[in-house]
């Protein structure tokens, strides 16, 4: 596979898309773990939901 004289433009496009998608995945994953940690800390501090169920309950 030869990309010809415009290889820089093609490779930059694909690398940029890959980088942005990886940043999105990383940001969403980190955010998920951060929210769950906040919820665990709040519940450990005695805060309880009105329903009485755990805030990290996903079932």
């Amino acid at each position: 596979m030869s990309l010809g004289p415009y290889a820089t433009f093609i490779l930059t496009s694909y690398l940029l898309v890959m980088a942005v998608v990886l940043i999105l995945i990383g940001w969403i994953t980190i955010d998920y773990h951060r929210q769950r940690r906040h919820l665990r800390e709040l519940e450990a501090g005695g805060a309880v939901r009105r329903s009485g169920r755990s805030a990290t309950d996903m079932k």
Partner: protein
Amino acid sequence: MTLIDLANPTRFLTLATRLLPWLAAATAILLAIGLYQSAMAPDDYQQGATVKIMFIHVPNAWLSMFVWGVMSLAALGTLVWRHPLADVAAKAAAPIGAAFTFLALVTGSLWGRPMWGTYWEWDARLTSVLILFLMYLGLIALWRAVEDPSRAARAAAILTLVGAINLPIIKFSVDWWNTLHQPASVMRMGGSSLDRAFLIPLLVMAVAFSLLFLTLHLAAMRNEILRRRVRALQLIQVAQASQRSA
């Protein structure tokens, strides 16, 4: 589980948690197939190898508009039906839509420099997509600026619906005005004008990116529901502390 059951955030969390690994796996497999097909696609007789940029530019451009469409439906859900997940869906979609729009603009520029001789031209298609990107950023800023979530939801929903006017302008800009951007070649009357050698990788990548959006959106919605639970528990904690001190 019926559709109305999904109005319950806990049920939604259960479903999202079950679906996410499968969606992520399907996205990864389809992206791998799409990337392989893109790499193996022949050079275009006019564009040469730069046609490969189309396989990522076009799906991002489609999704930049599709995500705003999803947010517009969610905005109706917020304003008309007051669906508890509507604002969650819109707020979670905005950064993902902004990222797709950014990628559509930049990959378009990187294709434009060798093909048009310029990175940017203030023509109707490029300018209207830039406006879409700025509207995404404005919406994200609005959600961050207004502290009360219900007020932020209503304001963002109105802004989203006003911004939806831009979608037909983007779509038909190449027909209404004399633009540097080429007219539609896939979704047009009379069928696609693309050869199968380019159409198949393009459609595979479009489905792969759509699945990517669905996966990221469900995960971001799950985060947003948890963030709202954090806020609710913080308020309960403050109320308990003030009761004890009274």
